[in-house]
């Protein structure tokens, strides 16, 4: 470039607020979280460094099981979201008439602009014992007495799929838009069936979209508190609830910090594995 666009004033003008933000609100708090998780009190009530919080985590089956359960359910939810998002994305991008395309994308987006709480509340009044679905089932004589459809694992997973659907659908749609129709036509002309086309052409092409969608959905589900709490009820056993209980109910911040750090570790690990498996970088996924 002919003219130097660098200027020390501009650099510092931009750097200072960004540094303040990242250091004060991201880096320092997480260092504090790590330090806090190694803190505790000995028998005399003095503050000491200890591994006790992590020992509790590994020796108490309830914590450990909740942690595993949350991780496994998050993976299941991410997979179901993917299974559901693929055909919807394909329909919107490749099947529906082009003039309806914009409207359909808009309809897909709209519900997700509404607060998660409102959406979960909607499901609650649909599914609960005195809810709308039970009302209709009773009215048509399909059941004799109301069934409680809330507060079980299947409902909770459905709720989690519902609340994080969009973050899978949008990246897959944008990946699919660049898929050339003639590839599918060629495969069809050469006699391959639908399954082969999906497996050999569509899935490989959408891989970047699938990866970024899966990472975002997994992270959101793992860290979700609202949906498991309201739709899973007391049986939800979601790890974020353990964190909440340690912080707010038991006021044991050291233990809560250890739990928080384990959750952070788990989500970073899975995201890292996802990026490695698909050979992508975080920067590419973000944009």
């Amino acid at each position, binding site marked *: 470039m002919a003219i130097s666009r660098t200027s020390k004033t501009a650099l510092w003008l931009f750097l200072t607020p960004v*540094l303040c933000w990242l250091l004060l609100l991201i880096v320092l708090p997480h260092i504090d*979280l790590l330090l*806090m998780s190694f803190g505790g009190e000995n028998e005399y009530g003095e503050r000491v460094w200890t591994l006790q919080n992590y020992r509790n985590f590994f020796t108490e089956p309830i914590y450990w099981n909740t942690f595993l359960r949350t991780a496994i359910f998050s993976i299941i939810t991410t997979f179901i979201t993917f299974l559901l998002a693929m055909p919807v994305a394909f329909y919107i991008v490749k099947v529906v008439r082009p003039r309806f395309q914009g409207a359909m994308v808009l309809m897909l987006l709209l519900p997700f602009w509404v607060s*998660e709480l*409102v959406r979960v509340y909607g499901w609650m009044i649909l599914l609960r014992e005195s809810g709308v679905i039970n009302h209709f089932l009773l009215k048509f004589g399909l059941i004799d007495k109301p069934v409680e459809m809330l507060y079980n694992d299947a409902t909770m997973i459905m709720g989690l799929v519902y609340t994080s659907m969009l973050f899978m659908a949008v990246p897959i749609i944008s990946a699919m838009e660049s898929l050339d129709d003639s590839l599918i*036509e060629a495969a069809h002309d050469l006699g391959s069936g639908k399954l082969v086309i999906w497996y050999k052409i569509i899935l490989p092409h959408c891989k970047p979209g699938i990866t970024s969608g899966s*990472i975002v959905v997994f*992270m959101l589900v793992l860290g979700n508190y609202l949906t498991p709490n309201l739709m899973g009820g007391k049986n939800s056993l979601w790890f974020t609830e353990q964190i909440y209980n340690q912080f707010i109910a038991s006021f044991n911040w050291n233990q809560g910090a250890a739990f928080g750090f384990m959750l952070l570790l788990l989500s970073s690990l899975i995201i890292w594995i996802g990026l490695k498996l698909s050979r992508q970088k*975080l920067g590419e996924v973000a*944009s």
Partner: protein
Amino acid sequence: MIRTLPNSKRYSFTYGTFIICYFVFLFAPLFVTCVLAFNNSDFPSLPWYGFSLDWFVASGPERVGIFHDSQNLRAIFTSFQTAFWVAIFSTIVGTCAAFLFEQETFPFKNLLYFLMLAPLVIPGVILGISLLLAANTAGTFVENRFGIDVALFRPSFWLVVMGQFSFITTFVALVVSARLRKFDHALEEAAMNLGATRLEVIWYITLKFLRPAIIGAGAVAFLMSFENFNTTLFLVGSQPTLPINLYLQVRDGSTPVINAISLLLIVGTFCLALVNLYFSKEKD
């Protein structure tokens, strides 16, 4: 399979039905919530007892509509205030970050960029607790050292603002960066040839070019802040925001007032979303 290829009738029909079911699944909870806001009943459930605006305008004593429900109104006001400040701060800092990473070179740039993306992959709950811990540590330190009790370091309005700001800024930065990448540098060079300084170029030219993206990002930041639950949950003090307040009510048994609030939220966010989409279409 696709538009250009022939499909069997049954295949198209099944696929179409699936898509319709999917959209019913998507809209059913919202639709039911809105309809039941007008039911003349004390519970948000069927049977239908007739149309009523009680849950919007009734002033008590048996039914208190949203327009007379001081607790919820206060929560809505708090949410507006929070979202206002978060949108302002995150737009300013996010725009700075976009300029910093797109146009400047400095040591450790990649490391800093990685740090900026970190909030995308940190669960909101973790952000909330670590900020709560850090604020508490800072508060204790200041109190022991200087003997001053700083209200800012306790769960409060401003702590919520900081917590939401800490991750929403990343989204703003990404949106503004994407727009900045399309900027034609010849415009900057022309201005500099004519004697403008770097800061004048940014102020008079680049920022004008970025304006639609900045406004759009600000609107999204406002909405994200207004609806945030996970991070806010741990930082909230005596002034609950609307999602927190609604959560407490839903957990302890609900009245159709929540439906009325939900209806207002749905209508409000739909309008904001449509306006935002309209403007983002315009700019392309």
